[in-house]
């Protein structure tokens, strides 16, 4: 039914870097953003033969390897000539840091290029996360005008996660301690944004396997805060945060849990009144979906 609303032209084409999460643990995030992108006419082409960005593992073991792994994908994107869209916060963080450093530090650039030869990366494209893409190519005004479902009865806490804007020694796209860019998107989709202190609190994703107790403690703290503020859902752009909080029942938490939605899932609700990925959520989301009322 919503096909008739879909834009018939494409506004822009981005190179899409899925990273490992959007092809495995968070495949429904990919489906979700694709539905939203096609509605707003944002084109995307999956980066040909992309590889892992190295995440937190590569730079822990060897800093140069971290740069080279991220650099390889940047080089591939430069060859295609479009800006690179990286929906995973960890991928985005690594890619944006590498991209900026390659642009500014000639010595490092040379070193990376020697490592990834015959590929070459020069820092000529931009790396964008999901929030930036929605602001740049849709905007909150257009977003508010196009929604078809009323979400005003849904109270959400915006959860940015730890590494999305905490980018050291360089300018980030939003405030490093109190970002607001996702708040305005949620607000323009018609849901109620609850102000809270844990916008960027770490969920402990890097230790889910190696130190489960620590992850449980950190993620539980975030969930407790959201509950105490009377929120109905947590909304996040990061697949690692989503998975980690969604895993809380298995990490050993016995208390109540709130559903964890991706930012694009909230937009799906506002635009189409349904979620493609309902079945992939570990903490059930049915109660939230029912709250979306046709305008």
């Amino acid at each position: 039914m919503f096909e008739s609303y879909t834009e018939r032209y494409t506004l822009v084409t981005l190179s899409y870097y899925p990273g490992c999460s959007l092809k495995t643990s968070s495949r429904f995030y990919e489906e979700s953003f694709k539905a939203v992108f096609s509605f707003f006419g944002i084109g995307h082409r999956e980066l040909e033969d992309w590889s892992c960005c190295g995440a937190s593992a590569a730079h822990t073991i060897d800093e140069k390897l971290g740069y080279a792994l991220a650099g390889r994908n940047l080089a591939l994107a430069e060859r295609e000539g479009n800006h690179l869209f990286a929906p995973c916060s960890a991928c985005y963080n690594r890619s944006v840091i590498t991209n900026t450093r390659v642009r500014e530090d000639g010595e490092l650039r040379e070193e990376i290029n020697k490592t990834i030869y015959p590929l070459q990366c020069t820092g000529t494209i931009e790396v964008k996360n999901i929030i930036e893409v929605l602001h740049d190519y849709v905007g909150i005004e257009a977003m508010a005008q196009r929604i078809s479902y009323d979400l005003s009865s849904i109270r959400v806490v915006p959860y940015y996660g730890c590494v999305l804007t905490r980018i050291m020694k360089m300018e980030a796209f939003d405030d490093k301690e109190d970002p607001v860019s996702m708040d305005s998107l949620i607000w323009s989709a018609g849901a109620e944004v609850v102000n809270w202190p844990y916008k960027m609190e770490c969920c402990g994703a890097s230790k889910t396997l190696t130190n489960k107790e620590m992850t449980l403690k950190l993620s539980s703290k975030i969930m407790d805060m959201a509950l105490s503020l009377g929120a109905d859902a947590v909304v996040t752009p990061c697949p690692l945060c989503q998975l980690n909080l969604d895993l809380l029942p298995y990490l050993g938490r016995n208390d109540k849990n709130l559903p964890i939605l991706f930012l694009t899932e909230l937009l799906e609700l506002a635009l189409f009144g349904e979620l493609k990925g309902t079945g992939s959520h570990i903490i059930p989301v049915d109660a939230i979906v029912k709250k979306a009322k046709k305008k």
Partner: protein
Amino acid sequence: MEDLGFLHEVEKATGEKVSACYQCCKCTAGCPVVADMDIYPHRIIRHIILGNRDTVLGSKAIWACLQCVTCSVRCPNDIDVARVFDALRKISVREGKMVEKDTWRFDEIFLESVQRHGRLHEMETILRYKIDKKDLFSDTMMGVGMLKKGRIGLLPHNIKDRKGMKEIFKKTGVSKQAQMTKILICLVS
């Protein structure tokens, strides 16, 4: 006069001006895992300046760090504390002084999977880590739960240019280094 060698070594490895620290404790105040640390972050920095090499490299604190970068963003002297911790881990492993080896081991297994396939093979990485720890069944419920929801990648995703990938690992010297650490970890334990 204290031994400045360690301070210089850390400053050189990170490019951070560690000596600029004036102990305001903001890093410690903001750290989400400070409760799991034996030495607080601002003290680690002080120990580096004082040249207390073994205290720092043998601490639990450097392994508790999640790399969430809160400390770095808040440092009034612009010291990337998380990066310093990252560098301390490397030195600690190189010298066989690490008191916790799970984090490092997991990252190695993670990278071996990337080296082999070009992308992370989740199932392989998790199983290899579990076998390595000789603890196969502690997270079975979580694994089954994730499988039911289709949230674990069962099959590997091989990229086409796997040769180029191996080349990257070879050029950075990581594949060789990994073997050395494995021997080192065996010796330590």
